[in-house]
């Protein structure tokens, strides 16, 4: 399914995001300890691990929701500390959520348009009245959103309330909203969770297409090993907040520590 490396439109490039010795604790609970890895431009990078391994914490650290007690994160060569989520978002990192954080009462179109919010320049009053420059701007943003709607094949649901859509489609809308920010890095928090086989296959195809078409770097968390191994370039494995493996899917699959973490070992 994945195109071979020689066929890719965007060659995997330089390191774009580097996580170095990050530790995060909530009181006495160590969520992450001394985790280091990097993400290269245009690659599909997966973070996997059993439940409670610290995957979501890692994503929240990158995303600026949590601020790690120790360690650094360098993005595009610049170290960032204590950035808030909206600042991270403005810098080109967008994300989706495991349990979805869509506006259920709003239409699909409005949800995706909200992803363009950071890029809107005219003031809120003009936007509300839809006059002058605000109208022109909205039309430009709408054009971008329409391309995403076409890309993710959700034309039939533009005007549908998100809350009325089946789960698999809501996930797609979540992805659409994240894409609407035209991110350089897209963080996906368990994009396949709760999906049936067909929905998973669709989602895989969309993730690979996003990576291929827009060159977006993708960092995804997933505990479905099969899916991850098929679509990722490199995989980081966490267990109890520690990194226990890192490399291409083949390397990771053969790693004894990873096998033990997933299958359990008799002590």
């Amino acid at each position, binding site marked *: 399914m994945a195109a071979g490396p020689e066929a*890719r439109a965007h060659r995997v490039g330089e390191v774009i995001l580097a996580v170095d010795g990050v530790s995060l604790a909530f009181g006495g609970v160590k969520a992450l300890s001394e985790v280091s890895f990097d993400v290269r431009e245009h690659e599909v990078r997966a973070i996997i691990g059993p439940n409670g391994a610290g995957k979501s914490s890692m994503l929240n650290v990158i995303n600026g929701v949590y601020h790690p007690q120790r360690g650094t994160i360098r993005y595009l060569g610049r170290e960032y500390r204590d950035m808030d989520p909206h600042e991270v978002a403005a810098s080109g990192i967008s994300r989706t959520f495991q349990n979805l954080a869509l506006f259920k009462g709003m239409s699909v179109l409005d949800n995706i348009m909200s992803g363009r919010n950071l890029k809107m320049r005219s003031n809120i009053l003009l936007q509300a009245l839809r006059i002058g420059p605000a109208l022109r701007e909205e039309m430009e943003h*709408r054009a971008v959103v329409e391309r995403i*709607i*076409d890309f993710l*094949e959700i*034309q*039939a649901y*533009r005007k549908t309330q998100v809350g009325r859509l089946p789960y698999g489609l809501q996930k797609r809308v979540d992805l659409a909203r994240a894409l609407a920010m035209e991110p350089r890095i897209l963080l996906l928090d368990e994009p396949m969770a709760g999906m049936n086989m067909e929905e998973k296959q669709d989602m895989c195809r969309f993730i690979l*297409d996003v990576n*291929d078409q827009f060159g977006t770097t993708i960092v995804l968390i997933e505990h479905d090993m099969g899916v991850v191994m098929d679509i990722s370039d490199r995989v980081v494995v966490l267990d109890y907040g520690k990194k226990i493996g890192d490399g291409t899917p083949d390397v990771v699959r053969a790693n004894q520590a990873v096998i033990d973490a997933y299958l359990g070992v008799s002590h």
Partner: protein
Amino acid sequence: MAEDLSGLDTFPKLLLHHARVRGDRPAIREKDLGIWQTWSWARFADEVRSLAGGLAAQGFKRGDHLALVGDNRPRIYAAMCAAQCLGGIPVPLYQDAVAAEMAFPIQNASITHALVEDQEQVDKLLEILPQCPSLAHIYYDEPRGLRHYAQPQLMSCDKLLELGAGFLKRDAAFLDAEIGKGAGSDTAAMFFTSGTTGAAKGVVLTHHSLIDRARAAADMEGLNDTDVVLAYLPPAWIGQNIFSYAQPFVTGYCICCPESAETVMIDMRDIGPTYYFAPPRVFEALLTQVSIRMEDASALKRSLYRYFMAMARRIGGDILDGRQVGVLDRLMYGLGNLVIYGPLRNVLGMSRVRVAYTAGEAIGPDLFRFYRSIGINLKQLYGSTETSVFVCVQPNGQVKADTVGPAVKGVELSFTPERELLIRSPGLFKEYYKNPQATAESKDAQGWFHTGDAGYVDADGHLKIIDRVKDVGKLADGALFAPKYLENKLKFFPYIKEAVAFGHGRDRVCAFINMDMEAVGNWAEKRGLPYAGYVDLASRDEVYALMRECIEQVNLDLAAEPELAGSQIQRFLILHKQLEADDGELTRTSKVRRRHVGEKYASLVDALYGGKEVIHVEAQVRYEDGRTGSISADLKIRDAKIFPPAAARKAA
């Protein structure tokens, strides 16, 4: 129509005519990125020219076949005309067919060029490339996902258009000369009929046949260049080709391509077509949606709906047919139009529909009347690929639920002694491609096409199709017995899922009934009728009474038809299990395998004719997981009332 189209005997010539006469009128619309984009006739002609130039530059020449695979897209239709400009023959293939099914047409016609919609279709063609060595060029419209494909056969449509523009610049007179060489007797297109009854056959149709039939029906309905059609059925189907290609080319109306298969309903509301076609199942699905939404509506809305729909049933059809209706009724209908019918038509996207057709299978009379009663001019037609569709159409004001109307101008009907319908028409196909044997079998020396359908012409001159000839039998007294006709009538009742009628060579007609578990289950629940399961419910006296009512209703209908009055159903039983394809009782397309059922349940058939009241059965059933089990039950057999034929009653 005032427009003079004489001398324009091919589609490319018609295209040039429209580009000249109504160059800025819309020809094709497509919704793209949420906005309807319009191609005028002039733009359409430009696109066709460039594509034709490109094809010529790629070596496509007179007599070559061009495979077209894709949903309704402007490019697909433009390519169709481009091939015809060069004297080539477009061969549209079903876009949802699996790769293996596409191999036969491509091999059969030694197709060298194919133009397809997107990656999905490219993948299919590449898959069968080893079996189809003739296929040297594949053009694709939508480049998404195809960037990394390195096969030498592939080329994008944009590139093809570019080649074409260059080619035409070098030789400006070429294309007009090629179009001028075309004649009405040339082959215009080839359609492969589905291979459910044997191998697929390529039906060869000439420009003359298609244009003649398209025009005859357009004249009859008064279609003109202000009409709008939604093109949403597969382009490989002859009907879609007539409605979205042949008829716009003779009248200049505009076709609209939906954004995707899922958005058809939304797009239909956007567009508001004036001319519409759908098979009965689409009308049924729409009605189901309406009914479900009405169930959820407030009590006030529900009661308004019930009241006005009852009135529409009573007088709506008459008003549409222009018959006499009382002043008060007319006023009330007007009010209903304001509060119910109008909004309902709007929701269905049918506010502007002047002419709607249905065909393909029998439509239930209630379903048919529903649409007519709310003011939608739904009519039936009869035709097939071999006849360029239009054989019979119901004219306005002469619409009946159970006929397909009188012959359209130019068509002659005749019947064999076995009641097989024969057709002679300017729209008849030329031949089955490379299959003289099949051609000779279905088209005789006098030019009559043998349809394989059995029917008769009723007192008003309307054609009535009753069954396939091979299924029609005779009762012992020689009276006509058309099992499918009876079964369809029964199946129109929501409580009856399947029916199997017996009677060939017997003295009377008896039937197996298969109840619809969901509908009868609901019915039982509403009545507080307890039951343990399918077998139990099927054997209830109350359910037998319900089924008897349905059957007697059918018998009453049959009594009114002199030809069929003898085949009223006299005895019936309700089967203890659903007929299943897994048990070999239905085909995979859910048609009853009558003979097989008759053999498998021979003891039940004997009981029906033997006068028994109860029969014990034990049946093997195969579960979905492959296990088998057995069901045993005592089936009751009941009589149904029959009615004297209407003619006899009048005489008495």
